[in-house]
């Protein structure tokens, strides 16, 4: 039996169904992300687990116990908010101690636990500061320590990094993941940032308009998207319109040329329109073993992203985006250069309409 179970959970606000038929089993110690655009119901689902919203229908079980009837303060969950929500009238140490004081722990135990938690978030020197004296990243780490201090059964994080700068976002997500692994705490993480979800999670729940589109590991979500929405929301995608040239040979006409597609074309007939998807990292400028498709192209755009250089190449009738690693020895290609794109026919994904 899973540690945290949501079965048939539904939530209506007045006449709007914000979450429909949500089913999820979370194992103990697992890190689960709810990923989706704003308004997809991911935060509402999290708030139902926390107890701030009551499901219209369905069951939520933590360690086998139905918690739907319990108030938030009876559920033993830790919650981290986007706005940090530290108590402004208390110091860092008092914030972290709050839950323990409410639980009536003895003074010595509280002090020891607070010191331990401040050690874990690496801010022991800030114990006597007030929240307004901390940076955003520090505040969120304190909020994490406060949530974990009471040793909750489940840790819930609601877009905890959205208010932070890009650099801090990256370092803090690694820190959160490391602490989560070290403590082995079951975690649900809500985000609209696909990179955050992909990089942190054991499994991702991709939500769209109140529905679960796919549940899977980052690798599965990224490489075998279940729906057209997942394919376009997660990662960058080349989406190319073509016309089936020869269904038996598996060729599709894109612009003026035919390309081989390993993906089964099903019952489609020659002349039918078809949408092809291709991840930008599947295409290379230099041939690699195993690649069986070569396309002549002309560079139309070069964007330096840091370690990756994103190149856009015109293949006549369509533009293909490809990613290549930066290399100090060889400058990136230039706009107008004639190149050959290499890829494998198995990299094409035929999208359902």
């Amino acid at each position, binding site marked *: 039996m899973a540690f945290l179970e949501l079965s048939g959970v539904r939530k209506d606000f007045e006449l709007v169904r914000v979450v429909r038929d949500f089913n999820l089993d979370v194992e103990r110690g697992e890190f689960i992300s709810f990923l989706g655009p704003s308004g997809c119901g991911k935060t509402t689902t999290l708030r139902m687990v*926390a*107890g*701030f919203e009551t499901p219209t229908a369905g069951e939520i079980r933590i360690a086998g116990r139905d918690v739907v009837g319990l*108030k*938030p*303060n009876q*559920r*033993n*969950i*830790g*919650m981290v*908010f986007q*706005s940090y*929500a*530290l*108590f*402004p*009238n208390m110091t860092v140490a008092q914030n972290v101690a*709050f*839950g323990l004081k*409410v*639980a009536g722990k003895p003074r010595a135990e509280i002090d020891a636990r607070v010191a331990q938690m401040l050690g874990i978030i690496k801010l022991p020197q800030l114990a006597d500061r*007030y*929240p*307004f004296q901390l940076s955003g990243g520090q505040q969120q780490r304190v*909020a994490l320590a*406060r*949530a974990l201090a*009471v040793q909750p059964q489940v840790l*819930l994080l609601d877009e905890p990094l959205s208010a932070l700068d890009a650099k801090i976002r990256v370092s803090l997500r690694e820190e959160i993941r490391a602490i989560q692994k070290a403590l082995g705490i079951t975690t649900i993480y809500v985000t609209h940032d696909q990179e955050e979800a992909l990089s942190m999670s054991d499994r991702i729940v991709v939500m769209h308009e109140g529905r679960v589109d796919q549940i899977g590991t980052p690798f599965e979500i990224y490489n075998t998207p279940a729906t057209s929405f997942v394919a376009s929301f997660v990662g960058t995608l080349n989406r190319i319109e073509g016309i089936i040239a020869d269904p038996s040979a598996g060729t599709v006409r894109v612009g003026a040329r035919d390309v081989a597609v390993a993906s089964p074309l099903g019952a489609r007939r020659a002349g039918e329109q078809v949408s092809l998807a291709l991840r930008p990292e599947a295409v290379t400028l230099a041939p690699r073993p195993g690649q069986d498709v070569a396309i002549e192209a002309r560079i139309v755009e070069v964007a330096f992203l840091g370690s990756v250089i994103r190149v856009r190449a015109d293949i006549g009738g369509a533009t293909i985006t490809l990613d290549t690693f930066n290399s100090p020895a060889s400058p990136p290609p230039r706009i107008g250069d004639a190149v050959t794109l290499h890829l494998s026919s198995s990299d094409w994904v035929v999208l359902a309409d």
Partner: protein
Amino acid sequence: MKRRSLWSWIVLVLAILYFGLPLLGTVDFSMKMRRGVYSLDAYWAVLGDPRFQATFLYSVVMACMTIVVGVLLVVPTAYWVRLKLPRWRPVIEFITMLPLVIPAIVIVFGYIRLYNTSSWLPLTGSALGTDALLTLGYTTLALPYMYRAVDTGLRTIDVATLTEAAESLGAGWITVMWRVILPNVLVAVLSGAFLTFAIVIGEFTMAALLNRPAFGPYLQLVGANRAYEPAALAVIAFAITWICMGLIQLVTRLQKHTMRV
């Protein structure tokens, strides 16, 4: 930099002209009771008047009562409205604004009609009942300021999220109110209280119509019959309100040490 200084000076001069000069004139006049020399005679005359002492004490007591009723009425209401009835906020704000524009006279007439000696609740029949009525009237009068002060205080903190954070840490309602909400709006409550105090001390219409021995009617009485004492009284009244405002500022500054402003 230069432009800023210039504007600062213009604002300051305007403020002095607008508020300072009338005050200065009053102070000047209040010290001219003894012909030819400046003296505090008018102040001694006023402060030595037993009616001054009695009415002032009465108004202070009424002000304190009003503050207690106001705080009990406003703080939970403002908190609940922010937390659970955000849609109702415009309505509540509108209601709390009403006393600003309903003349005091309407409120008092209404009370007299409703609670006169022949009504179902003859409050005006006894001094205590009338005092209760007056307190209610004052509360109404101070409501806009008290509500606005508390609501502004609540705005500086994220009431809903702080409540949820405390709840998720196991806190019940009492703990949330007492340990999280109150400490963070205490300064706002105090500033509302001082404002209320200043308003009640100077109020005339209600006290006069309900015929209670308050400070406002005494001010008016002296103002109509004496020459120098009213000026002295005005200065005293001004000093009291100024002290109240000073306390508000002081309290607000203290807050800055524990909170982001």
